[in-house]
């Protein structure tokens, strides 16, 4: 009898909680932020300061990855969807269209700064000095052989790639394909390196209309014609030379030279410290925090430092963004105030607390423009 009563009480309590939740759905008082794990360390710093120094609640920030964040963000308008999503790349046209289709019509884009991607090895080993072409030739799945046709990457040691490099085995630890860091690395480093090869550069410059030329270039590279047709089907329209180029340039070798080490950059740093022959790929903030254990390789003659990334000299760097759902501004308290705190001189300025955490700040004029965009809530159109 007593047990029945207990059960009934528990049941009613749960039902009560559920109805209470649905009632709450109308108005949430905590800002909900999702998105990139690269922006997460910066967004959380701002959120913490914002929570401590204002009367608003501290925003809740989930680390879902850029793609996952935008998917949640574009699901619709309402208290059950996030207000802001962080992204380590610009929103894609397809994602923007998805947002529009789901009623998220007004989006404010905020550029917050830059992040460099470092290729680093243990401090006990000599610093690598290489070009992006070396990076491409060492890590691509297929590279053009002596006769111009693509062959499976034959390079075993760095010396095979470039005689000036040491004769150690190619062993690179990096993030898996789901990571934004990997996307950026493929696009900037691998793509940049592939462009240094004339045949690939020529292919890249071909337009969508030049189907015959693209097919001819592909034949010269020894690629099956099916690749073109598959791309055409995938895109729903005639692919450009650049699309074919991307399939060649962004494919990372799978024969053990590139090791997927998971999303945890700390783990990569630890593995590098233990293995002086290996190189690792991770964001600049991890390089800066672990300067005693690892050092960044010189790429195209530029060492990854705060200044070289800020000046744009270091070639492998990418912009970081967050996106605001304008429909939520004014409904959920504190969204604009949070964005203003983020873009304030105190946070994003050269002496702000974000650069101290490893964010590469915007130039002054860029910052002023971003700040104005946030103040006026200028929306994005694509």
């Amino acid at each position: 009898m007593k047990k029945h009563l207990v059960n009934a009480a528990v049941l009613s309590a749960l039902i009560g909680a559920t109805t209470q939740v649905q009632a709450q759905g109308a108005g949430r008082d905590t800002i909900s932020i999702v998105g990139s794990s690269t922006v997460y360390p910066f967004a959380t710093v701002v959120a913490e300061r914002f929570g401590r120094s204002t009367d608003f609640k501290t925003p809740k920030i989930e680390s879902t990855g850029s793609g996952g964040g935008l998917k949640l963000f574009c699901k619709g308008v309402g208290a059950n969807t996030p207000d802001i999503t962080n992204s380590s790349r610009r929103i894609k046209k397809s994602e923007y269209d998805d947002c529009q289709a789901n009623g998220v019509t007004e989006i404010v884009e905020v550029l917050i700064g830059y992040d460099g991607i470092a290729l680093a090895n243990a401090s006990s080993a000599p610093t690598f000095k290489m070009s992006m072409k070396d990076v491409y030739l060492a890590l691509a799945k297929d590279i053009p052989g002596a006769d111009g046709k693509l062959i499976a990457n034959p390079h075993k040691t760095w010396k095979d790639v470039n005689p000036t490099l040491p004769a150690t085995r190619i062993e690179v630890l990096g993030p898996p394909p789901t990571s934004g860091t990997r996307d950026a690395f493929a696009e900037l480093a691998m793509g940049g390196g592939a462009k240094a090869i004339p045949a690939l550069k020529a292919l890249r410059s071909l337009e969508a209309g030049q189907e015959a030329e693209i097919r001819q270039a592909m034949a010269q590279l020894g690629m099956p014609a099916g690749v073109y047709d598959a791309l055409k089907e995938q895109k729903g329209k005639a692919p450009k030379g650049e699309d074919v180029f991307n399939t060649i340039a962004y494919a990372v070798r799978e024969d053990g030279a590139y090791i997927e080490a998971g999303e945890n950059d700390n783990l990569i740093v630890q593995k590098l410290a233990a293995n002086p022959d290996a190189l690792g790929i991770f964001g600049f903030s991890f390089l800066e925090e672990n300067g005693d254990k690892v050092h960044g390789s010189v790429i195209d003659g530029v060492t990854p430092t705060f200044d070289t990334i800020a000046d744009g000299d270091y070639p492998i760097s990418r912009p970081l963004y967050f996106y605001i759902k304008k429909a939520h501004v004014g409904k959920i308290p504190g969204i604009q105030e949070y964005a203003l705190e983020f873009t304030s001189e105190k946070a994003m300025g050269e002496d702000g607390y974000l650069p101290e955490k490893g964010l590469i700040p915007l130039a002054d004029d860029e910052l002023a423009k971003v700040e104005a965009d946030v103040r006026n809530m200028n929306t994005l159109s694509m």
Partner: protein
Amino acid sequence: MNSTNEPRRSTSSAAIQASLKRRYARERRFQWYGRLAVLTGFVFLFILLADIVSKGYPAFTQQYIMVEVDFDKEQLGLAADATAEQIADADYLGLIKRSLREMFPEVTSRSEKKQLYRLVSMGAEYQLRDMVMDDPGLLGQTREIWLQAHSEAGSYLKGQVAADSDQADRKVKDQQVLWLDQLRAAGRTESRFNTTFFTAGDSREPEMAGIKVALYGSFFTLLVTFFIAFPIGVSAAVYLEEFAPRNRLTDLIEININNLAAVPSIVFGLLGLAVFINFFELPRSAPLVGGIVLSLMTLPTIIITSRAAIQSVSPSIREAALGVGASKLQTVFHHVLPVAMPGILTGSIIGMAQALGESAPLLMIGMVAFIMDAPTGITDPATVLPVQIYLWADSPERGFTEKTSAAIMVLMGFLIVMNALAIYLRKRFELK
């Protein structure tokens, strides 16, 4: 006869002797293999624990630096009749910076000043603000105040940084080492028990981060899990054991429950995302959803152990109860369940301990989040201990390494307590 038998007997007894010897040797060998296996297990456990404890124990102390702070109204920009709001908004960081400069007047260059300011935690300005908010009478006075040290300075004071290593190889610079040594010599540094670790939520500054949100989150999540999984699990077990007919259908149910116990936990997370968040529109990151998902995961454990406990109740108890005229329901509730209860509780506690250590399904429902404010109910955003560990392990700041290990120690402490409780209950059960 004797003469012919004698040697034969002796050869056969010799053969038996030899085979006996071999058998004993085999047994001894096997025992050694067994000991070796146990030893290997212990060595691994010892290495794991030693690694965690050696990394984690420094996190339980916290370093403080004594700074003389002049609560100058002009510096703060406050008039005598300042409102509470003005006091809250005043520039306490400037106050700290000035106090530090006064302690080391020789510091003039910009980069040196920056290093000097990095000695104290970012939280110090909020500490001063709260002090003034509590007691506005402090304004205009000068006080000696213990301020929390920055995690990098703290790690030097804890002796984790070798001062003779190359300056470029460490976060604490030579100049800072010099200042910290001076402060220590003057008795202006202090090591205390780290209460912040238990009273603060997550933070981006290692010295200010704590596990309060994770502890509350774990508590609320387990509360929901218990109130769902325990009544449902025990009811299902009682029905299946005592009332259900034995037929194909109940056999099928039994097989499915056993299968459910082996389903990877991430699958429950996906289910929670699809059903509770997307369909029922319950809030993301809430202990309510986390608890429901974990209760699905612990249900099979509770049902299986409860059934085993009910099965092991002696039939004579049931027969005696039925014999004196008790109904089936009375027999079950008054006689069988009380005897089976310790076993049921043991199983439930082990199931709850599993739920406490689980993180994979919670990744899917948004509990991997930066949350500073402790939840006040089951619908507030929260995180749980294993997820907090995962988040800290992924942070770039070096200071989080020890926090990660310390949080693991706390989690393991809870698991040990829960498992010890389960063993205690089983012991009592066996005595009966």
